[in-house]
């Protein structure tokens, strides 16, 4: 081992040391210590000649250790280390003894001080003998910069770096950049429009070739250290294809679910699909989908017109009935009708039905429709295109087609054979199920759209089909299926027999209809039930005879149950064979019993007569209801194809007939079906006709969607989440009362019942988007993509700039200021939205009731300079308060009161602005506001908000009655500041803001090398200071980048791999993730990332084997120091 040769140098520091310490004596003593080959004292060791002494001795005497006893090592240790290095000695083979600050300056007694100085020198000599040479290492540096936060600070820093042609990743949590500055209307004191000066910068950030903008993204993990940070970014799914989206905003217009707009501070609403503000960068929509919809929305798929059931049901739950109605109307022109008579395939498919009972979507639809008077609906402005379309048949299919085409600008005429439009709705369905007034109103609305309805016009009499073809560019045949199918038994034409369709039509036309005491209805469909229930209401005893069993009955089961409740008997498995007239109106009907055989083409089991089982029943009236067919004679004459069953033949996907320009749909093509099927046909025809008349190819319309079921696992999971809830039953008349009148049997829901029932809908119970699909239908770019998932992006950067901004203090915690309690107590940022021309009031300063305020109080220091909340000054409130005062003065006649503690107007042009506002006649009251109240003490105070404050200049309490109170909340550390601090190992001050490395001299650096801070995350500041700090942080980052390499300090932890047991305690205790237990050549050992290690030594303390130690602070070195200090 090399012999240790130490040189010791005692500094006089003029008399600073030499005045109290006998430096000669100390030098003499040092010379006696082991290993010391030279000991000198000198006036000023830090001077060039002083340093030359050391350098010369190293060179001439071959010193391999040096000790200087002088001032604090925090001052001159680097100086002497450099001197050693210059002379070829490793700088870590140097030791410093602090005999000035820790000795000569704090003790009077020269003898004692000299003794202490000797101790310190002896210890330093002992320690230096244990020191080891250490190497400063360097490492390449990644020149990418990660900027966190897209407010003005992040934007500015990103642009500064990108303009220096270094790659920037700008990560923003929100869907768009801009931060708080984008919400501000004007900036003080220049009053220029904030958006106008910010937008060009936002656009530049969005388009800069050196900036990758990761909006709607969050940092999940950061590893590594200066020069090579590795970050994982979670890019949240927008459910919108960013490339396809053109930012048209149609999705937001169509979205039925609304929530408070964060950008407009809750003063306006936004859709679940939304673009936060008009200038947003990136200018693409985002869907606020918080979770996957719990159900499959099978209701929507089951509905032939795919009504947005989850949409309107959830709007009912929120109490937004008007919006629910408008949503229903988008797809269904007859909501009140369907709310009563639709057979509701949606309910059959409803996924809630798999758990307990389906949601009563039909009853809810009726409830909403009943809240709206159709006569009051506004008629949308439509530009007429001059093209004429005729519709033959005024039933639901024809009405729907007319409605949809009229909205597209066509001139529509409906030809209806009967005296009134409505088809089966008007003449088939009895009054007790569908009051005629309801139907009339919905048809009247269609007429108000400009649809002409020519009633009593049977095509084929005065007006011929051919004539229509000449006068109209397209025809839609929707004549329905109103012809009864015959029984084909003897006696069918006897006067006691009346066809059900005819019977119902006569009733609905108001004709006098009489039935005998005993009525037999033959058939099992809805018409049979309708006819029997009408006959029952006319006082008859009614018996239904159906040739198959209950299971095969095509009628809706609820209708069958209602009929039975009304005392109607149903006889199964029997068919009539003949009707025999007797005296007068009395007759007998002979039936034969049936049994069920093999299934026929309809899938139902075929009834087979049992020979010899005939029986006879007495009856006064026989009403056959076997089914219906269509009258297609007029069409046949023109050469339209018809089927064997008497239906018109169409291309089912387009509803085109074999004749050009003639379309057909509804019952006339399908045979008797449901109202909603007819409406679906009308919609399909309208689309096809529109395409045809625009000269486009008529496209096939795939309307069929298969409703999805929940899996058993999903059902049991949902049962846990959503407890059992009975379906809310709408009140119904008792059967005894029902049969005495033709009043509507079922009453609608009350508001409470509707809200309760709508709350059973699984989709309505979740927050955010319920994936109802309105946006998808509205998006022409086909950009909506619900299959998107969050993506994790990994990126590398050499430096990081954190510019995460602030939160506004929530003034609702100061209850006495009445925020959220009184309508006209606003926060500053709310007022910014109010004065913004693009804001909810288009820039008008208005009270909640729409009046202009006559007086406004502006309360300063809300949550700032207040020991109960934040003790610090938020630095911007005085100035923005003055700005509000100016804007109120400029735009209204209102008196303005500034309630302030101190006016702090410290920036460029600020004091001048203060003077200007003073001159504008604003009242300044110096004193803290105690409370805002509505309790009036005088007549003058009535109806006002009274601001109670102490006027410290007058020395008394003042009460100021005003119309509006604007609170100036302070700025506070963001709620997620702690998470960000942990990610980047940044320190925070007691107030929660990020701590700079040095408050005066290193204000944008942090404790973590390579991580810089800018803007309000470091503390409250105004825009100019924020921008300056952002540029400073960018400059710091650029300075690191331009050096191009990272210096790794040698005074860090290192592992003695032989001693290491890989217990992981070092990994656990380290806050910088520097030591990690790894596998090295198959052996598990701890390994320290030198760039992360700060050299704090915590790992060495917890290391049970002594494997871990910090270079230059090893156990040996510290023990040597301690031992030497205590030796006498």
């Amino acid at each position, binding site marked *: 081992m090399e012999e240790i040769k130490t040189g010791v140098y005692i500094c006089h520091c003029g008399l600073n040391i030499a005045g109290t310490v006998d430096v000669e004596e100390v030098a003499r003593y040092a010379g006696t210590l082991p290993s010391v080959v030279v000991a000198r004292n000198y006036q000023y060791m830090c001077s060039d000649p002083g340093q030359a002494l050391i350098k010369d001795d190293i060179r001439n005497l071959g010193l391999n250790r040096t000790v200087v006893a002088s001032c604090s090592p925090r001052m001159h240790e680097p100086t002497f280390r450099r001197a050693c290095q210059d002379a070829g000695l490793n700088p870590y083979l140097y030791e410093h003894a602090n005999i000035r*600050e*820790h000795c000569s300056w704090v003790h*009077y007694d020269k003898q004692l001080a000299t003794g202490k100085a000797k*101790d310190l020198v002896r210890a330093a000599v002992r320690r230096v003998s244990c020191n080891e040479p250490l190497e400063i290492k360097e490492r390449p540096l990644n020149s990418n910069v990660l900027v966190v936060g897209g407010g003005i600070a992040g934007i500015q820093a990103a642009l500064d770096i990108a303009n220096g042609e270094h790659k920037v990743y700008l990560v923003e949590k929100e869907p768009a950049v801009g931060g708080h500055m984008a919400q501000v209307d004007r900036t003080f004191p220049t009053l220029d429009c904030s958006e106008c000066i910010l937008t060009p910068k936002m656009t530049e950030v969005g388009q800069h070739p050196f900036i990758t903008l990761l909006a709607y993204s969050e940092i999940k993990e950061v590893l590594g250290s200066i020069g090579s940070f590795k970050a994982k970014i979670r890019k949240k799914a927008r459910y919108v294809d960013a490339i396809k989206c053109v930012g048209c905003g149609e999705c937001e217009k169509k979205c039925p679910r609304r929530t408070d707009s964060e950008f407009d501070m809750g003063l306006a609403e936004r859709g679940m699909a939304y673009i936060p503000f008009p200038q947003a960068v990136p200018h693409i929509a985002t869907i606020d989908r918080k979770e996957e919809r719990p159900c499959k929305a099978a209701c929507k798929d089951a509905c032939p017109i795919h009504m947005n059931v989850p949409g309107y049901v959830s709007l009912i739950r929120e109490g937004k009935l008007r919006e629910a109605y408008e949503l229903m109307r988008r797809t269904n022109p007859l909501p009140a009708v369907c709310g009563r008579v639709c057979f509701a395939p949606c309910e059959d498919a409803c996924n809630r039905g798999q758990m307990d009972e389906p949601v009563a979507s039909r009853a809810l639809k009726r409830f909403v429709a009943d809240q709206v008077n159709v006569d009051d609906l506004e008629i949308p402005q439509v530009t007429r295109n001059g093209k004429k379309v005729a519709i033959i048949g005024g039933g639901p299919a024809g009405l729907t087609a007319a409605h949809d085409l009229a909205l597209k600008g066509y001139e529509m005429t409906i030809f209806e054979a009967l005296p009134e439009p409505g088809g089966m709705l008007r003449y088939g369905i009895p009054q007790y199920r569908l009051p005629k007034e309801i139907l009339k109103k919905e048809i009247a609305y269609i007429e108000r759209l400009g649809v002409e309805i020519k009633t009593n016009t049977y095509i084929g009499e005065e007006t011929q089909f051919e004539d229509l073809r000449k006068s109209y560019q397209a025809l839609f045949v929707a004549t329905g299926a109103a012809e009864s199918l015959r029984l084909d038994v003897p006696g069918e034409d006897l006067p006691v027999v009346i066809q059900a369709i005819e019977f119902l039509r006569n009733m609905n036309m108001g004709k006098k209809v009489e039935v005998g005491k005993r009525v037999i209805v033959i058939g099992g469909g809805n018409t049979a039930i309708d006819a029997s229930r009408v006959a029952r209401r006319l006082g008859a005893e009614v018996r239904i005879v159906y040739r198959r069993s209950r299971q095969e009955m095509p009628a809706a089961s609820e209708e069958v149950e209602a009929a039975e409740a009304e005392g109607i008997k149903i006889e199964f498995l029997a068919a009539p064979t003949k009707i025999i007239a007797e005296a007068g109106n009395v007759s007998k009907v002979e039936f034969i019993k049936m049994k069920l055989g093999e299934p026929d083409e309809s899938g139902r089991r075929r009834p087979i007569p049992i020979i010899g089982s005939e029986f006879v029943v007495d009856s006064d009236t026989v009403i056959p209801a076997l089914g219906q067919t269509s009258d297609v004679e007029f069409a046949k004459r023109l050469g339209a194809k018809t089927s064997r069953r008497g239906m018109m033949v169409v291309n089912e996907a387009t509803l085109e007939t074999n004749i050009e320009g003639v379309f057909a749909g509804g019952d006339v093509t399908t045979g008797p079906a449901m109202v909603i099927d007819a409406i679906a046909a009308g919609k399909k025809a309208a689309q096809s006709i529109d395409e045809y008349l625009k000269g486009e190819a008529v496209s096939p319309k795939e309307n069929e969607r298969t409703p999805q079921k929940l899996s058993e696992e999903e059902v049991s999971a949902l049962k846990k989440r959503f407890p059992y809830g009975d379906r809310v039953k709408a009140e119904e008349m008792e059967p005894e009362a029902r049969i005495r009148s033709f009043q509507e049997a079922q009453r609608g829901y009350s508001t409470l019942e509707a809200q309760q029932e709508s709350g059973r809908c699984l989709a309505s119970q979740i927050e955010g988007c319920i994936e109802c699909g309105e946006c998808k239908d509205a998006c022409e770019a086909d950009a909506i993509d619900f299959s998107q998932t969050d993506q994790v992006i990994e990126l590398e950067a050499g430096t990081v700039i954190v510019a995460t901004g602030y939160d506004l203090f929530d003034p609702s915690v100061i209850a006495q200021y009445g925020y959220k309690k009184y309508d006209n107590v606003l926060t500053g940022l709310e007022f910014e939205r109010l004065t913004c021309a693009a804001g909810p009031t288009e820039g008008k300063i208005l009270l909640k009731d729409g009046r202009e305020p006559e007086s406004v109080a502006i309360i300063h220091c809300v949550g700032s300079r207040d020991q109960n909340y934040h003790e610090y000054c938020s630095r911007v409130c005085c100035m923005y308060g003055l700005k509000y005062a100016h804007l109120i003065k400029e735009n209204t006649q209102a008196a303005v009161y500034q309630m302030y503690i101190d006016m702090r107007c410290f920036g460029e042009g600020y004091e001048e602005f203060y003077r200007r506002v003073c001159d504008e006649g604003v009242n300044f009251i110096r004193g803290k506001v105690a409370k805002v109240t509505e309790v009036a003490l005088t007549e003058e105070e009535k109806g006002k908000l009274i601001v109670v404050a102490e006027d410290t200049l007058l020395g008394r309490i003042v009460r100021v009655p005003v119309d509006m109170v604007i609170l100036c909340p302070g700025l506070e550390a963001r709620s997620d500041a702690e998470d960000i601090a942990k990610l980047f190992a940044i320190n925070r001050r007691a107030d929660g803001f990020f701590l700079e490395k040095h408050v005066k001299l290193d204000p944008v650096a942090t*404790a973590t090398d390579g991580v810089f801070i800018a803007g309000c995350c470091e503390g409250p500041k105004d825009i100019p200071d924020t921008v300056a700090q952002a540029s400073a942080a960018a400059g710091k980052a650029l300075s690191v980048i331009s050096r191009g390499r990272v210096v790794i300090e040698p005074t860090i932890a290192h592992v003695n791999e032989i001693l290491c047991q890989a217990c992981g305690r070092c990994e656990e205790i380290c806050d910088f993730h520097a030591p990690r237990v790894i596998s090295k050549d198959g052996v598990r050992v701890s390994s320290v990332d030198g760039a992360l290690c*700060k050299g704090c*030594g*915590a790992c060495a303390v917890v290391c049970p084997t002594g494997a871990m130690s910090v270079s230059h602070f090893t*156990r040996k070195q510290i023990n040597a120091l301690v031992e030497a*200090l205590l030796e006498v």
Partner: protein
Amino acid sequence: MPEFEPRIIAFCCNWCTYAAADIAGTSRIHYPVNVRIVRVMCSGMVDPMYVLKAFEKGADGVLIAGCHEVDCHYLNGPLKCDAMFAKLKRVANALGLGDERLRREMISTSESPIFAQVIEQMVQQLKSLGPSPLREGVKV
């Protein structure tokens, strides 16, 4: 017989208490000569063995001082030091040394008068306690 002068070893963190001691010097705040400061990078770096070594070599009292929690240069050093110090006190009691000879302080850069005060107090207390039982070369 001259008055007993206790010997104190103070482990001071580089960033706060060592700097506070520097500023005490700059401000000429005088305090008893009995203390010898050992510079460590962080109070969390102080190994209990260093403290026991000090007593072994004849210290009468040991001070461990560093940043307040919020000021720590290394995030949580003071907390780590507190945890170590709690254990150290138990060991000191077990050794019959008593925990009155140990002192843990958080002294920030701006608190140099407090540093001087703490030294003053320790000297007073140690004088009343008398020399460490481990002094005079008693081996542990």
